């Protein structure tokens, strides 16, 4: 199945978004093979480098405003429960401009999937600090280094009530594909943070490739909230990828 469109891909060569695009297309193909109807898949995005992905995949799509990936997906789910809804959002999009929507969607446990392209920088506006930029980050708006502590997106969605919380790495599309598939199949609010190098403003390929490890290989109990919270704080030396947390809970849309 060809999922490409005729749109010209305008990401920088080597951009982490390619890894996410390939992983996502792979996941969609396999999900369709497993019985999900292609016509029921809708993808949405905000505005930013991440957002261009909706132009590059030939499925139903909703190219929203900056920060507004999540509410339209909630509206769609309530309008048609058969839809499989996947939103792409950037760190600026999701955790700066639209952070209230993320928290409330997790709290509601609406049955949608959010994939966070986390490159720790506003890239399309040519390099400013976002909510996940590390303290001391030198960007065009923070020449002396960012003075703010970064947000921890995994921890944030865990405490907000997300029922599926995972992390992937754009440099490991095969692992990411499996995570995306599980997230889409999960009934409830699923959140996948993707560690995404930005080759221009935050090239973290070398560092990430050395430090990420699959936490699920080492017998991590995904039903344990305390363990998930502890894991979410692991940044020094090794960075865990895989599923942090998953539980079953009634979804928002089931009430309608």
């Amino acid at each position, binding site marked *: 199945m060809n999922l490409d469109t005729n749109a010209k891909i305008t990401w920088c060569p080597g951009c982490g978004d390619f890894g996410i695009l390939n992983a996502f297309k792979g996941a969609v193909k396999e999900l369709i093979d497993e019985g999900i109807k292609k016509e029921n898949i809708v993808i949405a995005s905000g505005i930013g480098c991440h957002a261009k992905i909706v132009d590059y995949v030939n499925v139903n799509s909703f190219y929203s405003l900056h920060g507004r990936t999540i509410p339209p997906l909630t509206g*769609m789910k309530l*309008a048609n429960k058969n839809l499989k809804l996947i939103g792409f959002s950037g760190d600026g999009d999701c955790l700066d401009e639209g952070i*209230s929507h993320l928290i409330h969607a997790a709290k509601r446990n609406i049955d949608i999937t959010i994939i966070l392209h986390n490159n720790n920088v506003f890239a399309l506006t040519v390099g400013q600090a976002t909510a996940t930029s590390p303290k001391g980050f030198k960007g065009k708006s923070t020449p002396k280094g960012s003075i703010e502590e970064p947000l921890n997106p995994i921890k944030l969605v865990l405490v907000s009530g997300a029922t599926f919380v995972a992390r992937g790495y754009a440099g490991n599309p095969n692992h990411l594909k499996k995570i995306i598939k599980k997230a889409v199949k999960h009934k409830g609010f699923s959140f996948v943070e993707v560690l995404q190098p930005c080759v221009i403003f935050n090239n973290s390929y070398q560092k990430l490739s050395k430090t990420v490890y699959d936490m699920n290989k080492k017998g991590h109990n995904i039903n344990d909230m305390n363990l998930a919270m502890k894991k979410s704080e692991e940044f020094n030396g090794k960075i865990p990828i895989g599923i942090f947390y998953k539980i079953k809970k009634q979804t928002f849309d089931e009430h309608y």
Partner: protein
Amino acid sequence: MNTITIGGKAGHGVKAAAKLSAKIFSDIGYYIFILNDYPSVISGDHNYSKITFDKKEIHSYYNDSDFLIALDERTLKEHKSEIKKDGVVLFDKNSFESNEKNHFGIPAGNIVKESEGISIMRNTALLGAFMYVAGIDFCVLEKILKKTYPSNAKINIEIAKKGYLYAKDNFKQKLKTKKIGKPKKFLCGNMSLSDGALNAGLETYIAYPMTPATSILHYLAGKNNVKTIQPENEISVITMALGSSYAGSKTMIGTSGGGFALMTESISFAGISEIPLVIVESQRAGPSTGIPTYTGQSDLNFTLNPGHGEFPLVVIAPGSPEQAFFNGSEALQIAWKYQLPVIVLLDKHLSDSSKTFEIDKKRIKKINPKLSKGGKNYLRYKFTKDGISPITFPGKKDTVVKVTSYEHLENGITTENKKDIKKMFDKRFEKIKNFEKEMNNLETFKVYGKGKNVIVTWGSSLGAVLEAVKEIKDVKVIQPIYLKPFPHKSIKKYLKKAKNIVCVEGNATAQLADLIKLNTGIEIKNKILKYDSREFEPIELRKELKRWFK
């Protein structure tokens, strides 16, 4: 025509008592109008309602009262000057004393205690007494109480009866009010607008609470045939609604000025993405938080130009609960046929005030959307002669539906090509050209009465104008209902022939007069503007109008 003023502290059940008394007169065939006046306070401060009833249709409240029902002493102080000569005051004498002529004290507090009721039931005791003084058969109230409080009917009837008998023993009757016709229905603008939208197939209503639009959410949340959602903020409201419409659900949202301001980026988004959406903006007196529970008509310019960039949109401003029904129905259908944002502009007075009317079902318009069956070659933004690209929704086999906030090609994919950009711009504006033709089948403006002189007004100010001109000769009233696109040809025709024109509106800068000048070239110099956050009152307005018209 008679007017009752009921007042008390917030929390005394003033609004409920007003509705009951309006029901009393409606049930025996009278036309009513209810105005509710309340500050932005949950309990304690002064609330009042005015109920006017008459044998003929009435369009406004009147200030001067034949009856004052006072649940506390402040009500008497605040409204004493509004009592007509020979007007009657009914008050709870367990709450305060008054010995003036025609001031009838009822031991409402003691009656409630005796019957082991709760203190809010004092208003029932006073209503019971009112039934006697107004000369209405007690069984009218009995029937209403049974219907209104099915689980508490017995105690309410007992308390009302005691009030009635006390009045009978102690006071003289002021009126003899007989049944004059079949029971009539009355409704406020917010509910009537909701009914109109439901009639046109409304499926989803999304809103964040904001006075004076909130009661739409309350009303629709009580219905089983519509989904209601209350998200985290107004930005979420409108973007959620766009997702809902995109997925095929007929969706409406509602707010007041401040919430509308938060929505504006997404109104522009609805414009470029051609997603159908109805936005109800019930104006409060602004600017900013302004005077939250009071009225005004100052958001006209704002709603005419609500977003960045240029895109077609429709703005409709009904002037009565009856028009709100038809406009609510039309708004949803227009949004779906022409795939654009439609704003229905209300205000606190229209949203919250109730009036007797009947819906003539024959007048309900049917405007059909252009639907597509989808398929492999489906293009969401297909170029067509009328600019309308047949719409379909995700979930159709072999069909890909792509919508976007970026400028785009027919397939919904981003473009920055200048030829494509212009072509898509022209396509969107072609839709509004076609809508302008359709406007000939709609009531886009209304003319009342005959005469060489003209009063122009809009929205809720219409009601007071229609009452005021009852005693002014040689004047007609023109009310534009569709404000964008503006029915300029017809309005111009009327205004050109007019001897003298006065514009009446509830804002400080004469925004309708400006709109008329922009669309017709005719400058209206005489203006009656009210921006003290209160509604026009017919008698006061008549005095002002008589400066121009004898």
